[in-house]
């Protein structure tokens, strides 16, 4: 007779984290990448603060502010979806997730309008270093929004509470990055 396999040693600190450990590894990694981008942006700005301020006047602050409201509301719906699913209200949870994904699509439409306006003005990534960072950071963030929308729809379909918690956590990370990206790129002239 073989000895029973002992339980793995408990990790009180790791056990405290809500949801899956790996999504937190991803969240911290993404925050570090975007954080390095923001710090690099403000470091390069030191070489030409007037040029960066002038370039920023070409951005649509109103559209970006609207997108902040859209993402914050979308995050709220994703968070509510988990609460609803835990209360066994599957239909309402799925509806909240689809609505959150739809708001993600609204975010992308507004972002697309902003990019189209820049293109119409002849502004590209090499117009000024400001725009290189603008396209790099907002484009990378938009790619995460697309991934997040797909993830929200996936967990609306495979709607175990653990799946919803993981999908919503990814979406909140996208939300969190935008909350920091918006002031750095759009507001700090």
């Amino acid at each position, binding site marked *: 007779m073989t000895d029973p396999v002992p339980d793995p040693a408990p990790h009180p600190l790791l056990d405290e984290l809500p949801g899956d450990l790996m999504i937190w590894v991803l969240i911290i990694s993404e925050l570090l990448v975007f954080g390095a981008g923001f710090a690099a942006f*403000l470091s390069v700005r030191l070489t030409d603060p007037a040029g960066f301020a002038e370039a920023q006047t070409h951005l649509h602050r109103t559209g970006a*502010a609207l997108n902040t409201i859209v993402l914050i509301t979308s995050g*709220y719906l994703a968070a509510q979806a988990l609460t609803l699913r835990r209360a066994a209200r599957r239909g309402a949870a799925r509806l909240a997730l689809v609505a959150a994904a739809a708001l993600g699509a609204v975010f992308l439409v507004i972002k697309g309008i902003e990019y189209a306006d820049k293109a119409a003005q002849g502004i590209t990534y090499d117009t000024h270093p400001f725009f290189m960072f603008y396209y790099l950071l907002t484009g990378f963030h938009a790619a995460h929004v697309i991934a997040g929308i797909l993830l929200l729809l996936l967990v609306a379909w495979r709607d175990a509470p653990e799946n919803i918690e993981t999908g919503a956590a990814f979406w909140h990370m996208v939300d969190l990055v935008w909350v920091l990206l918006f002031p750095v790129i759009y507001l700090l002239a």
Partner: protein
Amino acid sequence: MRPDILTRAWVALIVLSGLSAVAAGLINRGVDIRVTGTAVLLLALIKARIILAHYLGLAAAPSWRRGFNLSLTLFCILLLGLYLIPAF
């Protein structure tokens, strides 16, 4: 009926976003960028802390919440320093 914690967090985020827009608008009215920049980044920091605590659920994980809050605060101080260097 009192709104739940998530709804209160959402309302707070909307209000703070409005305040950020007002603070940024003050730059065009001649207010010192050291004041407006600090206000804008402080509001962003508060919003990030709300998302971490209530959307991501770190309110139930106080050790992690403290760690994230400290890291974010130090990061925002770094950003503010980089932003304000040309102003001195």
